[in-house]
């Protein structure tokens, strides 16, 4: 492990990762991570709108990770149960903007619905996304955590680009979901 610290550092530096976290997520930890993101953005990004959009996207991504989480982690290649939601998040600063990458285990049974939702969002331009957001907001349906299907639509609107995603089937009950959101101000 010791000799890989340099490689890990080198890789994070090459990818221009400004924040990375892997592990259990609690509400307090999300608050702390958001505080770090906000301070870092204030230091490096002069454009207030870009700062806000990145902060918004990170907030939604972390809260997605928190709410839609199978409470699993990998231990020696096996998925094992965790008490808190578990996942990975990385925020990278590229020349063209910022990337917010998240990964977590989710219920395999939800994959098709999420994929359909993301594919639909990716076909829509800014005006249609706004219409979909407004229609979803107005429909009066609440999900258990209140968002009611608005999260990914909002992420796509703030991103200004297509949502890049992937699913790795894990076992019959679980899949690993990866999402890359490019925020290009």
């Amino acid at each position, binding site marked *: 492990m010791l000799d890989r610290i340099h490689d890990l550092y080198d890789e994070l530096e090459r990818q221009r990762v400004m924040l990375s976290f892997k592990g259990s997520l609690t*509400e307090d930890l*999300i*608050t702390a991570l*958001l*505080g770090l993101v906000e301070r870092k953005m*204030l230091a490096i990004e002069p454009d*207030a*709108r870009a700062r*806000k*959009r990145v*902060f*918004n996207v990170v*907030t*939604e991504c972390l*809260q997605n990770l*928190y*709410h839609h989480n199978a409470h699993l982690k990998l231990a020696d290649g096996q998925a094992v149960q965790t008490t808190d939601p578990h996942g990975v998040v990385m925020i990278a600063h590229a020349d063209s903007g910022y990337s917010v990458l998240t990964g977590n285990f989710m219920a395999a049974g939800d994959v098709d619905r999420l994929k359909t939702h993301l594919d639909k969002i990716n076909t829509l331009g800014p005006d249609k996304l*706004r219409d979909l*957001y*407004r229609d979803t*907001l*107005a429909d009066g349906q*609440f999900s258990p*955590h*209140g*968002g*009611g299907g*608005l*999260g990914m*639509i*909002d992420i796509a*609107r*703030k991103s200004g680009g297509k949502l890049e995603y992937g699913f790795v089937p894990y076992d019959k009950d679980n899949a690993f979901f990866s999402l890359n959101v490019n925020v290009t101000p």
Partner: protein
Amino acid sequence: MAPLQLEGSPKTPHVNFDPETGLLELKGRSIPENSIDFYKPLIDWIDKYGRSPQPKTALHMQLEYFNTSSSKCILDVFKKLEAIRAAGNEVTVLWHYEADDEDMLEAGEDYAGIINVPFRMIQIAEVDDN
């Protein structure tokens, strides 16, 4: 009835609802994980206030950030105001947004398009939160 006053936190807005003046204020950021828990007392308060409201009620919304978990709760707040207005009272939402924050202006316009209450969009100088 008693006013509703809550201090702001890193994830929840400052709240000041005054039943004597009809002035309601929500200010700061609204990004809690479970917004329903946070908004339930606010919505209950407005519901109760609506039974004997002031002739004029004004809600000042001055949010820097809100998450999608808060979006529908905020809509529910507006729906309560819509009912107060439908009962023959004057109700206004004053939607404050920072200059250059077009996303926040659009969010206000989206609510204004759904809710039957007059909205006034008020541009404010960028808040320096350093």
